[in-house]
């Protein structure tokens, strides 16, 4: 159980980075040892209640928002890459199983270029939750997944700030999230007609050049969708 908030120091970041790059078999326990080491981290605060462990992307927001959300006591570390690197080091063991691949470095250490930052397994869902904190259930399509498996719809929508932080995210939810099964609808991934990829690249990213889509409601966007999205409207 995590009972304090810490950030990696530069030595800790380098150790974590080298651990990821060397693809060591014990990376999960090694990462945790870095995160728990006084040599590699700096203390931010001791917590009154231990942190829960996230299973889904939604859990990441639910657990961390009261601590680092905009009005929370430790909001100043919410955009600190050293905090997110530490968080993923101490939670790695809970996020991926022993045989699950670590995959790319930016999933664990934030890459602060605008094109890749959302790939971080914890910061990615947290910023979505924060941006839609009034009612995060309206973007379940981006938050219902297991932490380590964000999937295609997240990649398409979250890759663009315009879409991720506007009602376009709610539109994706209206189209692709099946509340009965608690998962995305068949055909939402991939690149077929009406897919999330086409919603982002062929509809929203083209319309936003001409129309103020950020100022529109999800329903207004829904109402002007071309016919190719009909199959997702009706399910």
């Amino acid at each position, binding site marked *: 159980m995590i009972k304090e908030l810490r950030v990696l120091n530069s030595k800790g970041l380098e150790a974590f980075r080298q651990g990821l790059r060397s693809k060591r078999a014990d990376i999960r326990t090694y990462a945790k040892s870095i995160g728990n080491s006084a040599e590699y981290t700096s203390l931010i605060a001791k917590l009154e209640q231990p942190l829960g462990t996230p299973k889904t992307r939604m859990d990441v927001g639910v657990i961390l928002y009261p601590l680092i959300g905009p009005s929370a006591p430790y909001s*100043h570390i919410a955009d600190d890459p050293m905090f997110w690197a530490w968080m993923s080091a101490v939670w790695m063991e809970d996020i991926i199983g022993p045989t699950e691949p670590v995959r790319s470095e930016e999933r664990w250490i934030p890459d602060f*270029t*605008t094109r890749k930052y959302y790939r971080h397994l914890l910061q990615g869902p947290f910023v979505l939750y924060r*941006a839609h904190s009034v009612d995060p259930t309206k973007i379940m399509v981006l938050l219902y997944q297991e932490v380590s498996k964000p999937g295609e719809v997240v990649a398409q929508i979250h890759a663009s*700030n315009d879409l991720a932080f506007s009602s376009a995210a709610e539109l994706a939810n209206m189209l692709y999230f099946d509340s009965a099964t608690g998962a995305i609808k068949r055909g939402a991934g991939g690149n077929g007609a009406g897919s999330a990829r086409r919603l982002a690249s062929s509809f929203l990213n083209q319309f936003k050049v001409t129309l103020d889509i950020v*100022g529109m409601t999800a329903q207004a966007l829904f109402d002007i969708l071309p016919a190719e999205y009909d199959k997702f409207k009706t399910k």
Partner: protein
Amino acid sequence: MKRTLNNTNRRKITQEQYSVVPASAGDFTNLIVEWDLVNLSLSSTDALTIEFATTGGRKRIELGEVGNGKGKLEIPNPFNTAVVIQATLRASADTQDGPRLWTAVSKGKSVILAIQENEDSSILPIVPVPNLTRLWALNFSGNPVLEVCNSQEIYANLKGNPAFFASLVPAIVQEIAERYLLGIGESRNWDNWPIFFENFGLSAEELDRFDALDVDTRLNEIMDKSRAIAEEYSAQMSIVSRVVTQLKELEND
């Protein structure tokens, strides 16, 4: 609703037509937005909007109607803990049957919010150094740090001169850009600078392209690109006109 996407008479707002700067040095809670769109002949009733984006969010502020095309407004900074934000200015017209239609748009503009003294949150902390043999120097032992000469405690005088830091900024950006493009030491892992440079076209893919060039071409392109970034940033921040105005005001006092 049917629209012709490519025929909107949408105008382009150039980087020189608007500026976004902190309302006062060292305090980033408010920003001053200034614009001159007179030559675009927009309708006076079009609405002006400015959007700010960081990696973790996007927020917009309505600036009011275009009016005579020129204006200046102090607004709250929606990301006052960020060190770099991207600003985009747009004008739009209401359509009776649906969403607002853009009538003029700008490209994004990077705004550095935190070049300040010894602040952990600063993109470029400033440290007065008593025995520095130059007026200023960049220290790259970790994240970039600006060292300023404080021989005989002249730092206070330098800091109070509006031309001093303004004249340094383009040279600083150029030197940091060179190091970043060359990939020296830990430069590619610096805090905050990668997103700053991405706003000038230095994406991860573009860095890969630079890295793959032969030595001579690479050096030439890096020098050219660094200079171009410094000049573009100087223009974006309206550094010359701001300093001219400030110095004229001092002269009149």
